[in-house]
Every structure is written in structure tokens, then in C-alpha cells.
């Protein structure tokens, strides 16, 4: 007996299989505010087998998230969870299982991973769990990005084991000594046969919305609602939603939160503080070269770093570190941002290829060593690591400011947000399908030179705000007050701000209080020592952190590692003592991460490997050499174009800046002319002295032009107008980009183009 259909089509047809999904559907609804989101996640479980099931679904929490409660419904019942101490919740759950009752447990583990376990689902019974989750968002001055994980990314751990257990299905195990009885799902390369996912969310806002978008999913937008536009989707990436407001302004939300108190949240844009100083920058860029970065992510990251370095002047200094499970530095210490050193960096980057494990801490510890005199670290990573509490502890001890650019389709958002926050840095998260280089340049432009430091808030604010503020990233404050109307007071070195609290409804107040709680719980969760490190000191710390978490859970009514959610439903005909069969819900490999990056080969399975190899036509080795050296050859555009990279002239232009801030050229005159054209090209694309990802580049060009010598009076006038344009954001029409990049650009051409630009013709 054999399946001829399958033999005909070597690719397994997912629809033809007899699929018995233990979990069939995961649907996200709720409201998203700039201060955070209040979500309900619907999980539909079903036993399609002829015995009762115990189904385990593992998922990672979003950033700054905590579970509040769940409601469970079936054909003839509805029940609500109770929040209990974890040990007790497990006992209640187990008793329910022993009694044959439908039992549900939501328990949080390290790294913010949750196991949702539903036991004693009867054959053909459908059980739906509605789980309420509070979560944070990634704030920007002009809006925010909301991420919700629809899959759990496999994550590196030095002692993990990974193996292929079936075709396109991988299994990963973490040491139980550290991770307890947490159960990880299997990872499917093709997520199409897994449970369906989708969403329908509303946006709550004070400022008018300019743009709503999703780089991750097909959406439909209806005023303040965003929903999946297709019937369903597959669980192989985060939902990413972007909301941009029409203006940049302070937003304060408040409302009664019970017992005569009012909860509030304030979002203060960085523009309310000050401007960048011109101090010299000391920066080490740390690049994750682990295997999971292979392909688009590392290619994007390398491109991004080159663009970042072009924003440096000779008085700035920088370092470059690449890590997998080994660390390599470009140099022993920091180097000035000279042309030679940037060339050196380019050469170094060209040899960096995705390779081994993700020993993140080794990367930033090397950077910390190089930055002994102070400065900033910018890490480009997919953050796919586990045991993050240990890494966070090392980061805190290193006493350096770490900013992160997360690159990936499945969220390590929670971890990277914590890593930046706990070290007083900032973080951004993008998918490899977006402009990673642009995001990196933007982030790089804001770190290194905070717009405010010594920030403090009035006593009613908790947690304490980060003491430094970076351009582009607002300050988010949570608090509770008994005064009505009340206010929040912010002070910083050289400035202060008083924010009166508006009145607001109780639902808003309640939500804000919960968001504050989940933020506090997340912060304390990150201080939880790994179970392994049970030295007496650690033990004491653990019990201190545990006690704090327990208190927070009780105060806010939110789950944590110390308190879990449990519900037991007695149904007619429950049979005690029956053993349910355990089923672990598989998840999809994150989009753009290669299955082979984690799951190398079948473990002790069929000896198919040897057969498959020779059947492939032997390709030449040329691609490999090209891959290593081709990507960074920016000068000769004649090189083969890498599929992962789009030709981006603006990025290329920015990379051409000399350390003195000007464009290259044979003579001072050509350099000045090209620099004028470069300013105008950047201004025309929306980048000015103060705005746009290339704002540092504009500033450096302007600085160069101000000092430019060997120019005539007329040329001097053009330079003046270009500098004006860099402030005003208005540039005449013209192909400035081509002029800026033309080695032979001359003043007469600049002048004639300028004149033509003010005398526009039809397109």
C-alpha cells in the first residue's frame, strides 16, 4: 500500500493530509493604545482523536506583558480562571485531571515563555480559551509599533539540543535544570498545516492618525480598526502594526482605577527635551553573526553598518565586533572615524558570514571592554537566544549603555526591549523584509548623544523613568495618584515639564493600571536568576525577586512566574483516573529564518541524506566567493546584484561621505559641488538637519560646506542656499542624486540644474 499521489508530487501536499489539529485556531482581538495594549487571545482546542487529550500550547509573551485571566467555554459550560500561587495552581490543575475534569493552566516560565495546558478535552469536544493579555508597544515620537508573536522562535542556548524529527519538523530541548518542566513545541518548516491565526484590533488614540500599516500581514483598515484581510493566516511570524500620528505631541491618559485613585500614563516625545549636542561619539557596533542570521538578515545588517559608519567624523571613534559563539573584533580598541578605518571596517565586514551560536553576552562584553572610557553599544541581532535573564544580568553588570536593532520576523521583542531598557539604551525592532539599513541609520543617529540626561519624575511615577532620553524615542511614564486632577512632574539637567492629568473613564484607568503592573512584573521577571545558579547569594536574590513578583501579582491581579492562572470545569460524565494523552501544539519556523539554521539534519533517522546529495547537480563555487566579497562593493555598481538587497542610491550616497563630512572628489571645487548636490538629494527625499534617518549625514555635509574653501562668491551663494534647504526641507527639483554621485560634477552643472528646478516642466 502506497500513496501514489505523494510519489507523483515529491512536495508533500499539505491539504491532502489527514490532519488532527489539537489546536485549531488562534485569534487576537483587543485595543491598542500608545501606552500599551489590552488583548484577548482566542484559542480553539479540539480532540480529533478517540481519547481525551491534554494539549500544551507554548507561546512567548509580547514586550512588557502579563497574563490577567482566561475564560474557558465549551458546549455547555463557561468558567473563569483564578489567580493562584503557581505551586497551588499546579496542584489544582492536577487534581482536576485526576478527577477527569476539564482543567486549564496558564503558567509562565523563563524568557517570558508561557505554557497553556488544557487537559481532559474529550473526543470531538471543542474547548475555547479566551486569554486576556496586557502588553507594551514600541514607542516612537510620531507613533508606535505593536508586535504580537504568533509563533515561538527557536532560540540559541549553549546547552540546547536540536534535531530533525520528521521531514521539515524539528525538535529542541533545553536543560531541565534551568528551564524546569517547560515544554517547547516542535518547529515546522512549513506552517501551512498548523492552526490558523488572525486578528481584529482597534486603535485607541488621542492624536489624529496619519497612517496605519502592517509590514507583516495583509490587512484591512477601517477608521481605527485593523483586521486580517484574508480568511486566515499561518503562524510563522509576528503580527506587526504601525500607527503614525499626524503630529508629535505629549499624550496623557488617565482614569479612575479604584479606591479613590487614578491611574495615568504619559507619552512625552523626545522633541520636548532638547537637541543633540555635538560631542564626539564613542560607539561600538556589535553584529550577530549566528547561524539564524543567515540570508537576508545578515546581508541587511552589514549594509546598515556601512551606512552608519559613514555618519562618523574623524573626531568620533568606533569599534566593530562580530560574534557567534566566538567573538571577533576589527581592532583591539576604538579607532578614529577616518577613511582608512572605515575601509578597514568594510574589509572586516566582508568576511563576516552567518555561522555559529548566539553568545550575545560575549559580544557586548567585548564591546564594554573597548568602551572602558564610556560610550554606546549598538547591537544588531535577531535576539534568538534563551536564558535571557542571565544575559540581562551580565548586561546590567557590564555598566554600559546598550541599544538594540532587532531584526526578525518572530519576536524577541520582549528580551531586546528589556536589554536596552535595563542598560539605559533604546531599541528598535524590524523585520528583514523592511528597510533594516534605514532603521539602523536612524537609530545610530540618535544614540551616542542623548537629548536629555538626569531625567527624574515625581514620586507618583513607577517604574522610575530611564535617566537619559534619545532623539526619536519618547519617554513613557506610568503612575497612580490620589490627587484629582493631579499632575506629573518631570525634571532633567536643564529642564522641567509639568503634565496635568486629564480626567478619564474607569475602564481606561483600569487598563492603565494593568499596563503599569505588567510593565513592573516584566522588569522583575528579568531579574529572576536562572534556576541553575543556586549559590547562596543567588538563592537569596531569587527569594527576594520571587517575593516582589508575588506582591506585584497580588497587587495588580496579574500572573507572573510566582502566580499562575487555573480553572477546573466539572462536566457531566467526567470519569476520574483516565489518563489524557499529551499533545504539544507545533509552531511554524519564523519566516526568513532557515530551518537548517537550527535543525541541521535528521537525528538517527532514515539514511536518506547520502542519497539526496549526489542527485544534486554540482554547482560551481563561484557563488560562495561572490557572497563573501560582492555585497559590499558599492563603488562599482556593475557588480552582481544580490537578491536580498535592493539598489538604494540614497544609502549608497550616504556611504560615500568622507570623514570630513564632504563628498569625495579630485578637487576641493568638485567636492564642494558634489556635497551641495548631496545635501539637496537628501533634502528632496525628506531628510533635513533635524529630521529623517539621514539627519546626521545632512549635518555633516552642512558642516563640511560651511568650511569649504576655494569657491567663488557665486558658488558660496549656492552653498548658502543648500544650507538653507537643509534647514527648511525645501529643495529645488532636479536629479541631485546623479549629480552628487557623478565624479565629474561641476559648479556650472549644479547652477543650471538649480535654475531648471525652479522653472518646473511637466513630468
Amino acid at each position, binding site marked *: 500500500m502506497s500513496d501514489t499521489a505523494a510519489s507523483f508530487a515529491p512536495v508533500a501536499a499539505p491539504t491532502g493530509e489527514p490532519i488532527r489539529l489539537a489546536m485549531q485556531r488562534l485569534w487576537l482581538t483587543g485595543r491598542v493604545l500608545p501606552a500599551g495594549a489590552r488583548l484577548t487571545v482566542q484559542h480553539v482546542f479540539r480532540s480529533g482523536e478517540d481519547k481525551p487529550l491534554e494539549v500544551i500550547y507554548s507561546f512567548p509573551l509580547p514586550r512588557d506583558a502579563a497574563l490577567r485571566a482566561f475564560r474557558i467555554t465549551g458546549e455547555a459550560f463557561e468558567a473563569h480562571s483564578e489567580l493562584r500561587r503557581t505551586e497551588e495552581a499546579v496542584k489544582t490543575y492536577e487534581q482536576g485531571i485526576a478527577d477527569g475534569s476539564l482543567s486549564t493552566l496558564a503558567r509562565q516560565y523563563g524568557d517570558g515563555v508561557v505554557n497553556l495546558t488544557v487537559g481532559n478535552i474529550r473526543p470531538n469536544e471543542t474547548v475555547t480559551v479566551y486569554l486576556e493579555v496586557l502588553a507594551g508597544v514600541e514607542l516612537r515620537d510620531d507613533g508606535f509599533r505593536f508586535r504580537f508573536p504568533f509563533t515561538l522562535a527557536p532560540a540559541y542556548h549553549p546547552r540546547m539540543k*536540536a534535531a530533525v524529527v520528521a521531514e521539515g519538523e524539528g525538535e529542541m530541548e533545553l536543560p531541565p535544570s534551568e528551564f524546569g518542566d517547560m515544554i517547547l513545541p516542535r518547529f515546522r518548516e512549513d506552517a501551512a498545516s498548523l492552526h490558523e491565526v488572525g486578528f481584529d484590533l482597534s486603535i485607541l488614540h488621542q492624536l489624529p492618525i496619519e497612517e496605519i500599516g502592517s509590514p507583516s500581514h495583509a490587512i484591512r483598515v477601517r477608521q481605527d480598526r485593523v483586521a486580517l484581510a484574508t480568511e486566515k493566516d499561518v503562524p510563522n511570524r509576528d503580527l506587526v502594526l504601525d500607527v503614525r500620528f499626524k503630529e508629535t505631541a505629549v499624550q496623557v491618559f488617565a482614569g479612575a482605577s479604584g479606591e479613590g485613585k487614578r491611574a495615568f500614563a504619559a507619552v512625552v516625545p523626545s522633541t520636548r527635551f532638547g537637541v543633540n549636542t555635538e560631542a564626539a561619539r564613542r560607539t561600538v557596533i556589535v553584529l550577530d553573526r549566528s547561524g539564524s542570521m543567515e540570508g537576508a538578515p545578515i546581508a541587511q545588517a552589514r549594509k546598515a553598518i556601512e551606512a552608519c559608519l559613514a555618519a562618523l567624523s574623524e573626531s568620533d571613534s568606533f569599534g566593530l565586533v562580530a560574534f557567534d559563539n566566538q567573538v571577533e573584533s576589527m581592532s583591539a580598541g576604538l579607532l578614529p572615524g577616518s577613511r582608512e578605518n572605515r575601509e578597514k571596517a568594510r574589509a572586516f565586514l566582508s568576511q563576516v558570514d552567518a555561522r555559529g551560536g548566539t553568545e550575545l553576552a560575549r559580544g557586548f562584553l567585548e564591546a564594554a571592554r573597548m568602551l572602558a572610557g564610556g560610550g554606546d553599544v549598538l547591537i544588531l541581532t535577531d535576539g534568538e537566544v534563551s536564558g535571557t535573564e542571565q544575559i540581562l544580568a551580565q548586561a546590567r553588570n557590564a555598566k554600559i549603555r546598550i541599544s538594540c536593532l532587532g531584526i526578525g520576523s518572530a519576536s524577541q521583542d520582549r528580551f531586546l526591549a528589556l536589554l536596552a531598557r535595563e542598560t539605559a539604551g533604546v531599541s528598535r525592532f524590524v523585520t528583514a523584509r523592511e528597510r533594516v539599513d534605514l532603521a539602523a541609520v536612524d537609530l545610530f543617529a540618535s544614540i551616542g548623544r542623548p537629548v536629555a540626561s538626569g531625567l527624574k519624575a515625581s514620586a507618583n511615577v513607577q517604574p522610575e523613568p530611564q535617566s537619559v532620553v534619545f532623539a526619536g524615542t519618547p519617554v513613557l511614564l506610568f503612575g497612580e495618584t490620589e490627587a484629582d486632577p493631579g499632575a506629573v512632574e518631570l525634571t532633567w539637567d536643564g529642564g522641567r515639564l509639568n503634565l496635568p492629568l486629564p480626567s478619564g473613564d474607569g475602564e481606561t484607568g483600569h487598563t492603565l493600571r494593568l499596563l503599569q503592573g505588567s510593565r513592573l512584573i516584566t522588569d522583575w521577571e528579568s531579574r529572576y536568576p536562572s534556576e541553575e545558579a543556586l549559590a547562596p547569594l543567588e538563592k537569596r536574590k531569587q527569594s527576594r525577586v520571587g517575593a516582589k513578583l508575588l506582591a506585584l501579582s497580588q497587587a495588580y491581579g496579574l500572573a507572573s512566574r510566582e502566580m499562575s492562572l487555573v480553572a477546573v470545569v466539572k462536566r457531566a460524565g467526567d470519569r476520574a483516573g483516565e489518563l489524557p494523552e499529551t499533545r504539544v501544539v507545533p509552531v511554524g519556523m519564523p519566516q526568513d529564518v532557515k530551518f537548517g539554521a537550527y535543525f541541521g539534519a535528521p537525528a538517527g533517522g532514515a539514511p536518506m541524506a547520502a542519497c539526496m546529495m549526489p542527485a544534486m547537480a554540482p554547482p560551481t563555487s563561484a557563488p560562495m566567493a561572490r557572497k563573501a566579497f560582492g555585497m559590499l562593493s558599492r563603488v562599482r555598481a556593475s557588480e552582481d546584484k544580490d537578491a536580498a538587497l535592493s539598489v538604494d542610491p540614497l544609502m549608497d550616497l550616504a556611504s560615500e561621505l568622507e570623514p570630513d563630512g564632504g563628498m569625495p572628489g579630485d578637487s576641493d571645487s568638485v567636492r564642494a559641488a558634489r556635497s551641495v548636490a548631496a545635501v539637496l538629494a537628501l533634502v528632496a527625499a525628506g531628510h533635513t538637519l533635524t529630521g529623517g534617518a539621514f539627519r546626521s549625514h545632512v549635518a555633516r555635509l552642512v558642516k563640511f560646506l560651511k568650511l569649504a574653501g576655494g569657491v567663488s562668491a557665486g558658488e558660496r551663494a549656492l552653498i548658502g542656499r543648500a544650507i538653507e534647504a537643509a534647514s527648511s526641507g525645501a529643495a529645488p527639483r532636479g536629479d541631485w542624486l546623479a549629480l552628487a554621485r557623478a565624479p565629474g560634477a561641476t559648479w556650472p552643472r549644479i547652477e543650471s540644474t538649480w535654475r531648471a528646478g525652479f522653472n518646473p516642466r511637466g513630468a
Partner: protein
Amino acid sequence: MNEYLTLAEVAEAAGVPARTIRFYIARGLLDGPIKAGRGAAYTANHLARLERIKSLQSEGRTLSEIGRILGGVEAEQAAAAPTAWWQHAVADDVVVWTRADMSPWRTRQVRAAIGELARFLGKERKE
């Protein structure tokens, strides 16, 4: 001690959570209870097997490996199970074989090394 233990008693005695024990049973690492339905159903054999699993785990074995070592349902297949290897034709006259179940980060490094070897051998042959 009774001859029969409840799941809770086994869990307590072995220091393995009940949910994990059920997971092991579903994975075939451990036999199910010897008596179904209400009442005590596990024996000292279960306890011993759990101890064995714990000790193998602390040696760094994966559950899949433990399953094969412990035999049980999969005993016969496991005995005959071949080892998987990847074959890399590095050049016309050089073939490298690597074990298929090495860890992924080790695999990456080995790949890089073989890549270098291939590039070198490729160049050599051209001259």
C-alpha cells in the same frame, strides 16, 4: 509503600511533575499506568524508569536519544537504526563525510571549514 502508586505519588517520589510524566508516556519513554480508570495505577517500575530518564538527561541526552536507549516500543528499530551522515563532494577527488546529528552551531563551523577546504582544493586543481 503500597504496591500501587497514584500519579501524584509517583511525581512526588521521582521529583518529576505529573504533567511531565504524562508527556513521557505520550512520547513512549514510559509505559502508561498498569490499571486504567480510577485508583492507583503506577508501580515501582515506573519510578525506576523515571530515575533512569533523569540520570540520562543529566548526562545531556535528549528525550529522543533516551527513547532509543531505553528501548521499549522502539527497541527493535532503534537497534537497527543506522547513523546518518552527510556526504560533501568537496572536489572531484575529495569527499568529506560529516555526522548528521551534530549540533547546529557546530555544523555551521564545520561547514565554513569545509568551504575553505573546497575553495583551496578548487584553486589547486585549476593550476
